[in-house]
């Protein structure tokens, strides 16, 4: 999925429209009457459901545009085409289609693993959303019951944002979430590597240099550059040393230490 945050040309107006739409939805939820009023403090528990639902939906949508999926998404269109029935004429069979059966299986396994991890992530979004909603209801207290002015709406929104971020932070700082993030990234990277491997097979068939060969040339070039630098820098440094004796910088701790009287 493409969002204002993943598209190549970023459009602040689109991002703003997206955020404003969410804000509207939130205000509508704020305006809903509660199902059961309990005592003077009020009972807003019925608000928690819609709030959590909206937030969870947003997290899921954002997640599909998240860092690891953005990387995987770059890989998957090629794969999707590759798996489709091969037409007589059409694009080159890049991706999984270009690979032998065994390789295609490996790619499928990685795609399946990615989907599985995405499912695990969803469980975290659920937890974050419901905790954020509960937190918001608890803190609403005296902030509730005001006139529906923009000022009051912004105050409620600030409170909601704080609750949402705190709840998010509580989850994403946990080790299991960090491991999940890392595994998502690694699986996405593995998918990209697979795709490149398939492309290399094709490239080799056309007699073109492969990525590995180009990288090897780069390594050779780097070695030559280093040798050249050694040959040119040594006389230059010698000349510079002869020209100007180095002074110790003003803030030298060693000099400062020498000034200290011994105990």
């Amino acid at each position, binding site marked *: 999925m493409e969002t204002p945050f993943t598209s190549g040309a970023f459009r602040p107006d689109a991002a703003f429209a997206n955020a404003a739409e969410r804000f*509207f939805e939130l205000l509508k939820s704020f305006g809903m009457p509660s199902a059961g009023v309990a005592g003077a403090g009020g009972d807003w528990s019925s608000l928690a459901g819609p709030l959590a639902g909206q937030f969870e939906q947003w997290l899921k949508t954002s997640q599909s545009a998240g860092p690891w999926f953005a990387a995987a998404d770059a890989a998957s269109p090629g794969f999707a085409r590759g798996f489709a029935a091969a037409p007589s004429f059409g694009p080159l069979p890049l991706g999984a289609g270009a690979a032998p059966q065994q390789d295609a299986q490996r790619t499928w396994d990685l795609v399946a693993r990615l989907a599985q991890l995405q499912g695990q992530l969803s469980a975290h979004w659920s937890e974050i959303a419901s905790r954020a909603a509960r937190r918001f209801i608890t803190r609403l207290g005296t902030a509730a019951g005001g006139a529906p002015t923009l000022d009051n709406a912004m105050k409620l929104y600030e409170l909601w944002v704080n609750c949402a971020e705190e709840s998010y932070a509580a989850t994403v700082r946990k080790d299991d979430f960090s491991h999940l993030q890392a595994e998502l990234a690694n699986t996405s990277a593995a998918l990209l590597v697979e795709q490149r491997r398939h492309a290399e097979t094709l490239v080799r068939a056309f007699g073109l240099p492969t990525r590995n060969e180009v990288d090897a040339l780069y390594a050779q070039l780097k070695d030559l550059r280093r040798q050249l630098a050694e040959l040119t820098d040594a006389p230059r440094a010698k000349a510079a040393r002869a020209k100007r004796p180095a002074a110790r*910088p003003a*803030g030298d701790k060693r000099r400062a230490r020498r000034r200290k009287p011994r105990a």
Partner: protein
Amino acid sequence: MRPFATDAEALFPELTLRIANTLARLREAQGVTVGCSAKRAVWRCGKTTLYQYLPLAEAPPRVRARPVLICFALVNRPYVLDLQPDRSLVRRLLGAGLSVYLIDWGDPDDADRCVDLEDYIERHLGGCVRNILDSHAGAALDLLGVCQGGVLSLCYTALHPKQVANLVTLTTPVDFHTPDNLLSRWVRGLDTELLMRSGNVPGEVLNALFLSLMPFRLTQHKYVRLLAGNCDQRAVEDFVRMERWIFDSPPQAAVALAQFVRWFYQENRLARGTLRIGGRRVDLGEIRQPVLNLYALGDHIVPPDASAAMQRYLGSADYTGCGIDTGHIGMYVSRKAAHEIPARIISWLGQRQ
């Protein structure tokens, strides 16, 4: 009982109008330009370009002032330091009569996939330093490293201490394993070999990673805030400039990024003193020149503790650390920082010329 005493729909006409107005302003502001000071390219290496800013007519360069080289992060564009006339660190430095240079790392492509940290530090940053020293016939310059560029600057200064007279670092992490470093937690389990083999990383992927550190605030809240108060066209233009910079991230060379993740975020080599660049150990204790370290107290990318730790590892007896009450992005573009940071740097450098 509900959050609002009456139906929230009473608010919708006003809100709709505000949304329409803000949207129109945002669209009008899309053509804003970024970068305001005149500069010329003086040296190139691969995709890296060294720029020299032209002096301001009203503030010719001071005769004996050392040149200042700004080394920005690889993961963002450096024009944020010269975003617009009233928010330009570069312009303030020029206004103080300093000769200002800036490194633009450019856009690495597939040909640069194997460019590594040694290349960036020794060949690119080092080439810039040597070029400036040659043209000024000087022995040392003042180095100003920003964020990841601060890390590269620390490495360079430790390896070539004689070429750097004073070191200024902005939002620069040194200890990557402080408990509040969420980014570090997340990337700790990355397979860097796989990362290296999977090719250059698009800027959008890194952006999405940074946004996901505080997603609600960074992708929703900051836009909704435009609806509050009186957001005039100028404020919207400032906002759009900042947005353009935030989402204009260059791709990352695969090897250099993988090394950065592994050596700094995963193994914390800079703080542990085990980092080696080009076969040489990077010992922060070798940095004995004066150091000014400015960091943001509300930084969600480089936590203040990660940066303030620098003092423990340096060999310098002239260290000034200063936490500024803002966030990571605020350090470059907020009104407060636009005044405070250049003033501190200019005054600090002035005392050490």
